[in-house]
């Protein structure tokens, strides 16, 4: 029988004494900052010049912990990255948790430690939060929602609408690491420790690039669910452009490649949580690559393709054996095959 004190209970979500204790002991002790500490109904932020970016995402990953990260790191980095993909500097995050009754407190503390560490690395504060506890079975251990506000410097326009024929397509690092790692963990495939999630906050590297190459970055997108293929296809459709991708320029860690071969899953469809696709002015693509190499988040960046003047929405892959095929987006979950 679990010691009630070691687990999250319904009382912790009720708004009473137990709830306040939980917020103090688990959250404030780790996320302390002047905007969060008063625990007001709303955090108030100073006025900002220019446009605001605003994003939200929910995190329901199973398992909660995996090599390279956990749900907490994902929840911060994912939302920070969504802001960064519009060229926004993150200003503040909200943190909402839905906890299943019975979750060990030790698990919650580990997750919040992770959130604190990721927020510090990204240089952003969690300024407001909420915790709810639901009956056993009403949620799968822990669900997290984070929303983020960021500010966009005047004159910065980063969106698929800016993509032009001739633009270089850069992938900031190796593909499919997160997706294959989580799948292997969840299914207990025992691949032996070679796989690691790539969860990472891209805002610093993006801010540096946006500053040094004004107007040079046309669009950014982090290829999360659905993978690189789905993201490329979506941008091709939304921007009305055509693309060519060269498979052998796409960085892929060897263990990830092997794990995908074993399971019969295409790495182009697996999620990435610390990478982005950059659509850039060809005049500065070389310099952008060099700048990426100097940054921890971009050491394996590669020019993987080019936007071309062709049929809108069409993405052609030049395969590693010099064949050609169309890339299409993922439909449904990527299921492993055996037959």
């Amino acid at each position, binding site marked *: 029988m679990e010691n009630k004190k070691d687990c999250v209970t319904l009382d912790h979500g009720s708004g009473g004494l137990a709830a306040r204790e939980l917020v103090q002991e688990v959250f404030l002790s780790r996320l302390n900052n002047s905007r969060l500490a008063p625990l007001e109904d709303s955090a108030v932020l100073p006025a900002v010049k220019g446009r605001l970016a605003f994003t939200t995402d929910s995190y329901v990953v199973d398992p909660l912990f995996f090599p390279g990260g956990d749900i907490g790191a994902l929840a911060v980095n994912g939302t920070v990255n969504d802001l960064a993909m519009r060229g926004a500097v993150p200003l503040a995050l909200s943190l909402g948790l839905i906890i299943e009754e019975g979750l060990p407190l030790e698990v919650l503390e580990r997750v919040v430690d992770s959130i604190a560490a990721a927020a510090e690395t990204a240089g952003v504060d969690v300024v407001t939060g909420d915790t709810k506890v639901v009956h056993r079975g009403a949620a799968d251990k822990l669900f997290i929602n984070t929303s983020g506000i960021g500010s966009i410097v005047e004159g910065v326009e980063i969106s698929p609408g800016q993509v032009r024929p001739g633009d270089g397509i850069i992938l900031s690092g190796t593909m499919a690491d997160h997706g294959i790692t989580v799948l292997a963990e969840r299914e207990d*495939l*025992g*691949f*032996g420790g*070679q*796989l690691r999630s790539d969860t990472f906050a891209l805002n610093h590297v993006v801010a540096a690039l946006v500053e040094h190459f004004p107007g040079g970055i046309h669009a950014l997108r982090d290829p999360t669910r659905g993978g690189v293929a789905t993201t490329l296809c979506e941008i091709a459709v939304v921007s009305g452009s055509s693309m060519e991708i060269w498979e052998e320029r796409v960085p892929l860690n*060897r*263990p990830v*490649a*092997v*794990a995908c*071969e*074993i399971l*019969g899953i295409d790495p182009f469809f697996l999620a990435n949580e610390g990478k982005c696709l950059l659509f850039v002015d060809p005049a500065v693509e070389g310099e952008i690559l060099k700048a990426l190499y100097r940054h921890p988040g971009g050491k394996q960046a590669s020019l993987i393709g080019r936007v071309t003047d062709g049929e809108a929405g069409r993405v052609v892959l030049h395969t590693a054996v010099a064949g050609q095929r169309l890339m299409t987006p993922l439909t449904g979950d990527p299921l492993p*095959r*055996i*037959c």
Partner: protein
Amino acid sequence: MCLAIPMRVLEVRGTGGDMLEPPLAVVEAEGVRREVRLDIVDRLPVVGDYVIVHAGFALHSLDEQQARENLDLLAMMAAGGNETR
């Protein structure tokens, strides 16, 4: 329906006929490890051999010599030097 990949044998266990310890090999490719069963393999592999793995079982132990010959033959064919025997 033949999804299978060649992996290198690191360890062989359970070939002593003990019912409770089935015959298996620990195999790896590029550092990714798997445990595969040896119940249906044609020739029991030794450490260092490559086996073709399907659905958690080794189907076939590769013969290095033959694999090399296969590759040489291919290269020759590609160069246009050989007819089908």
